[in-house]
């Protein structure tokens, strides 16, 4: 990524020709509509991204031609469904570079993934007096499950603080790690600020203390190359619907040595080896963690989304998004009365801002009238809002199908907001 950045800095005008954004936009049917009489400008990708036609087609092909329950039948359709579902798991394995596809557990999304690790690892290994470390920029999904665990076990939740720019204070992190620490649960990229955390370094530090690390990859999987072998994290969670797949798809990656030792998450069909009223033995990985019938069509869609990302050229997409964020940051921060929340050196995809004297909800409503979709609110990260002493922010979040023209539209609409409230 760094080498690509250097190329961009030298010749920014070449980016648009390298990346044919208009061509890419044609892949996403939702983008061609108008909202309130204006062309849709979809800048809420950090909440949920749009779905390309090939993913829609793959899901509907499954529903039309292959639908059945998986892992159960010896009949034709069940085998077709199972092959497609397990095929998606193989794609995930390659996408995140796991050692084995059995380390990739299908879940509804990152939230369910974190809850799985909390139940499976946390409730087994965390006891009274132990400590769990999270960071000050976590999404509620990576706070609340650990808080519930700490309450249940009499353990303590410790928080890595951050600077005014929205960067974690690594010295403080080092000082928090000790022999009572049982897990570090950390956002790879902050959904509210866009900060890319130096997770590789932080994982290595935790491992020096023998502490496993869970990465919340909900925001990173769509925007960065995520390599489990390179990062060496113990757990990684992602949401399909934030990476161009349908809702209900998601993954927990876990190192096999942890997953083997963990408690199952939910009990039910498909996660067992044998059941009697006296005793149940559990299935091996990954089935041990996949009770009940999963969101088969959605997970197959996730596999198709991974294929799609491969087909458009991941590195160029990442470079283009980076360029777009730089352009938007310069453009929006130049508007008088606008303040950017989250100014870390390493950022991806997210531009959170506030306008002096205007509440973000009012920004959101006025932008919506211009056809622009942004998120206005606390972004499920109330502690981040408290840290920056704002009740909420407006957040524009980008994907590789957004354009500089859309950023210009956003800038004009923000000026309109200021006008209404002046």
């Amino acid at each position, binding site marked *: 990524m760094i080498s690509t950045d250097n190329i961009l800095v030298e010749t920014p005008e070449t980016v648009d020709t390298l990346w044919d954004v208009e061509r890419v936009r044609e892949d996403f049917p939702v983008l061609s509509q108008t909202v309130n009489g204006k062309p849709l400008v979809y800048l809420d990708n950090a909440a949920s991204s749009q779905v390309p036609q090939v993913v829609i087609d793959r899901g509907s092909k499954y529903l039309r031609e292959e639908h059945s329950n998986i892992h159960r039948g010896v009949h034709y359709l069940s085998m077709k469904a199972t092959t497609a579902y397990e095929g998606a798991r193989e794609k995930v394995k390659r996408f995140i570079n796991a050692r084995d596809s059995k380390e990739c557990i299908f879940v509804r999304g990152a939230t369910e993934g974190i809850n799985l690790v909390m139940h499976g690892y946390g409730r087994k290994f965390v006891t009274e007096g132990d400590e769990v470390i999270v960071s000050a920029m976590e999404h509620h999904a990576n706070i609340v499950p650990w808080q519930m665990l700490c309450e249940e076990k009499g353990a303590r939740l410790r928080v890595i603080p951050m600077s005014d720019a929205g960067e974690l204070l690594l010295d403080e992190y080092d000082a928090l790690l000790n022999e009572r620490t049982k897990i570090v649960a950390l956002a790879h990229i902050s959904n509210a600020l866009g900060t890319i955390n130096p997770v590789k370094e932080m994982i290595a530090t935790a491992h020096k203390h023998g502490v496993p690390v869970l990465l919340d990859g909900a925001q990173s999987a769509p925007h960065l190359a995520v390599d489990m072998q390179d990062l060496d994290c113990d757990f990684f969670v992602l949401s399909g619907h934030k990476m161009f797949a349908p809702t209900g798809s998601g993954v927990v990656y876990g190192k096999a040595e942890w997953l083997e030792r963990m408690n199952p998450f939910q009990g039910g069909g498909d996660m067992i080896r044998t059941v009697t009223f006296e005793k149940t033995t559990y299935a091996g990985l990954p089935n041990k963690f996949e009770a009940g019938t999963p969101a088969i069509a959605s997970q197959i869609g996730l596999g198709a989304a991974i294929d799609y990302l491969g087909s458009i050229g991941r590195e160029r997409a990442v470079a283009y998004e980076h360029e777009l964020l730089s352009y938007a940051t310069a453009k929006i921060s130049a508007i008088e009365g606008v303040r950017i929340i989250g100014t870390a050196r390493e950022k991806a995809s997210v531009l959170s801002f506030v306008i002096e*004297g*205007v*509440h*973000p*909800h*009012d920004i959101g*409503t*006025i932008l919506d*009238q211009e056809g622009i979709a942004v998120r*206005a*609110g*606390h972004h499920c990260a*109330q502690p981040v*809002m408290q840290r920056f002493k704002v*009740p*909420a922010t407006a957040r524009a979040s980008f994907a590789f199908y957004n354009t500089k023209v859309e950023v210009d539209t956003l800038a004009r609409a923000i000026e309109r907001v200021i006008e*209404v*409230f002046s």
Partner: protein
Amino acid sequence: MSELSELYQQVILDHNKKPRNFHKLEAANRSAEGYNPLCGDQLTVYMQLEDEVVKDISFEGSGCAISKAAASMMTQSVKGKSKAEAETLFDEFHRMVTGELDEEAVPNHLGRLTIFSGVRDFPARVKCASLSWHTMHAALHGEETVSTE
């Protein structure tokens, strides 16, 4: 932009900038907190209720222009009213912003509160307009918290 100017009328913008009765009320014998957990809006309504009459009322908190202006004008409308009158206003306001009451066709007591009628065209903002009213209602009934979930 016509719906938008309907929503953000000058009176609403003015109450947003200079909210009335925006302070803690020392003489209050009732108070309630209102939350909109989806957006983080939070406000406290203080009420001095004597002989079933709202003798004084005020509010504190943070929120968008719609919620702040609605709270400001709610306190103005309810101050001096009997409990029953306040209940009627609550009911009429709620029905107006949810589109169940056509304030122009059906006789009502809303008066200048009808400037909030434009909210019904913005379903995502109905809760902003009604949070303070729900909170006032809770205070009136001696409840301490209310959430618009």
